[in-house]
């Protein structure tokens, strides 16, 4: 049981901030971020890599942090929803989600935004079908997705200038 578990030292950079912690090897990345660091913008919804509420970027790649151990992220650079706004300026995706009513309860939104970030980094001008594929690992129960697709299209347009 846990008292026998040796903790492991890890170093992770999250939204540009460097963290060093000793953690149990079994600790999930999402638990580390939420419970150890108090970054509760990243949410938990399903535990089986289906819903994507816990999506964040690990070295630029979208990862569902409920199925990655904190120790696996040792040495990685991570971005979460809290890092999207820069110098008081919302990211175009954040603005577009609000303007296009791409969120209701807001629980899936952080994961949805982070998947969208990864999608637009790889494909700055995605078609609606490409957007559907890009967010297919993120569940939303409120919006019916149509407005999320519109939001991402709007953000892509804004980012292209």
């Amino acid at each position, binding site marked *: *049981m846990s008292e026998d578990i040796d903790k492991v030292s890890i170093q992770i950079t999250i939204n540009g901030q460097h963290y060093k912690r000793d953690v149990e090897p079994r600790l999930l990345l999402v638990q580390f971020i939420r419970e150890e660091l108090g970054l509760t913008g990243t949410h938990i919804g399903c535990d*089986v890599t289906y819903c994507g509420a816990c999506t964040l970027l690990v070295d630029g790649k979208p990862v569902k942090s409920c199925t990655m151990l904190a120790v696996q992220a040792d040495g990685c650079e991570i971005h979460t929803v809290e890092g999207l706004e820069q110098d008081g300026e919302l990211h175009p995706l954040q603005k577009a989600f609000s303007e296009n009513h791409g969120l209701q309860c807001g629980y899936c939104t952080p994961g949805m935004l982070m998947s969208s970030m990864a999608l637009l980094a790889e494909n700055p001008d995605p078609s609606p079908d490409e957007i559907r594929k890009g967010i297919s690992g993120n569940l939303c129960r409120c919006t019916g997705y149509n407005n999320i697709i519109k939001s991402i299209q709007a953000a892509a347009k804004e980012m292209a200038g």
Partner: protein
Amino acid sequence: MSWIGKSPNRKEDVRLIRGQGYFVDDKQDYGLLHLHLVRSPYAHAHIINVDVAAAEALPGVICTLTGAEVKELMPESFMELGPEPAANIQDYPMAVGKVIFQGEPVAAVVAETPALAADGGALVDVDYDMLDAVITAEQAMEDEEVLHESAGTNKTWQGVYEYGEVDAAFDEAATVVKIDRMHFHRFASTPVENNAVVAEWKRHGELDFFCNNSFVGFAQQLLAPALGVSVDQMHIKTHDIGGSFGNKISNYTQMAIAALASRKAGGRPVKWAETRTEHLLSSGHGNERTFLDTEVALDKNGVITAVRSRHIDDCGAYPRYEPLGCVIWSQVLPATYGVRNFRIDFSQAVTNKCPAVPNRGYSRMQHLWFMERIIDICAHKLDIPADEMRLRNYITEFPYTTPNGCVYDSGNYPAMLEKAKELIGWDDWKKKQADARAEGRLLGIGIGTTLDSGTNNFGQARIMNPHLPFSGNSEVATIRIDLQGSVIVTLGSGPSGQSHETTTAQVVAEELGINPDLVRVRSGFDTGWNTFVGHSGSYASQFAVTGLSAVHGACEKLKAEMRRLAAFILEASEEDLEFGIGEEGPQLSVKGTDQAVNYWYMGNLVNNDNAVLAGELGDVTLNIRHVYRPPFTVPDVERKYGNLTLTYAAQLHIAVIEIDRDFGHPRILAYAAVDDCGTVINPKIVGGQVHGATAHGIGAAIMETFQYDETGNLLTSSFSDYCPITSMNMPDVQYGSIQTPSPFSYSGAKGMGEGGGAPLHTVSAAVQDALITEGIIVTDSHHSVTSVFELLRSKDESSGVQVDKR
């Protein structure tokens, strides 16, 4: 400028798009403990022994709870809403002696961390003696295996709803269509946020809850007697709730466990955060309904004159709130059709499955699906086009009193049909369908008309149990000008994504002549605000009527006070004053002059500087609490007659679906949804609700089901098996709306959001239309690849539909 009918950006978004929402699981507290529930792997079993010794010996574990202990600690079991004998069911939040469904909690472990609590849970040793499981309501009604000895029967409710001259209508019918059996399947809207609560039973006696219950007005009335506290001892708060769709109405049972755990842990706060599998197994499923021996009488023109049928609801292991579903469907007894003669024999039974809870479209959706199936099956059998069949049967005069006394406020179903046809390109698809059929392809076009009845008359509960002390409805809002002149509003609704902060700010801005940015609407629910009544919560498509009427009423009272105060300050007559925004912010001014007084001045005068006020202004506080009550009377319980709902929003959907003949895969080629919720407060938000409800319905129709095996083992207990709808399965919805203002709400708005399950009716209709060339009749609401494949395979068997032409 008018703010009604506009779509300003949502106030809620400011925090939610930054990851700054505050959901229950986000709460961290000094000394916070974590609770893990040990759950039964069996659906039906005696509990021989629960051994928690090893768990308690684990360092970091603070305490444990077993079912037997929970029973000792609770002065009484939870109230069951149903009448005797169901009222005698002993309903504890943890199994006592016997397990009634898979996933039912049997023990709890409280520890310093979530991981330690789970470790402790793994050390709890439970001995079970397995019993045969009762899986269908029909099987349960036979009472061979009685689940609750305290009730002595599995039959939890039965009643006959009879109106008009049913048998005479059948005697005079030109055609009688008989449908042996139909079935509406079990699913739920499964919000992405699971249930969660932090309970803190303080040593001085107060009990704090930070939770995501979506109907706190009701939950507190169940919790207080069961925990042996007064309602006032409990301080219940919500903040952001990650969706509910009705499902979170029933998490009061877990709130009770967390409270008892906190007390046992010496008053330390205890957090319980459900996992997804726990949610799917045990938090609540939508009710499953079976329709037997349905007979439909039609005249020579295909107009339905009478329906008689037998309906059975499967409420799962504990009836709890659910017997209300035995009545709530009757809000929409004739659906959108002018049928005057009904005899529905309605029963409900318990089974060894997860308890049923309200789920978006609660109880009405099942009945509306039934009526839509009747319309389509009769249309096909009588060779009347599905659109024409509806036009012959739609209600067209409003207000319309249904055979059971409900008053449909307004509507225009033919106009909605016309609009939906335009959106989808009806004529074009009809041509394509003819071509497809000529090629032997299975292409169907289906229509679904539905009602979203909103603002319950709780008096309908008495039709189910005459002893219940509920009737009418109400909601509260408070508004005040605080000592800095800010406009502060609190609500009783405790929303879960429905944008109440935004629409409230629009109504206040409209009334005060300011803009929504100048209105602060507090997030969530808090009993400490004194902004609640027994009906407070977000459910049953009612906020636009109950919540916003409360806000509107509060504004009117506030304005009256502000006028009196401003008239005194400005030495003007009240009639000469107008509300607006000036150079120094929101103000009242004397028309045609530069004389004005701003909110800061008024707020300060009342709160800080009141000796200057005239004596007759002694009652002015600028702090208003207003309760809105809809004009209901208590229904006639004997006749099951009365107005059960205030407003009737409607939706009309059309789907085009092609079915793969070899594999059964139903592919949605086009989809249109037309909404009518009367006057629209915020078009963007209404559109969002329509899209969301459409996704739930399509997901339920083509993917999602809670499937149990014969031992009561849930086969779809993770999202990987349950497969909620994703962006890949959701069609692009062509959305339109019409507005028939309600004469019964101050603004003409109708409550909306639940959506009435329109996609289920529509997809069933389209699948039916696709398969009719194969002689297949659709009598189940689930159309997954597997279900449709089975339908195609069974096409040679009898459909269970007979037509008797006279």
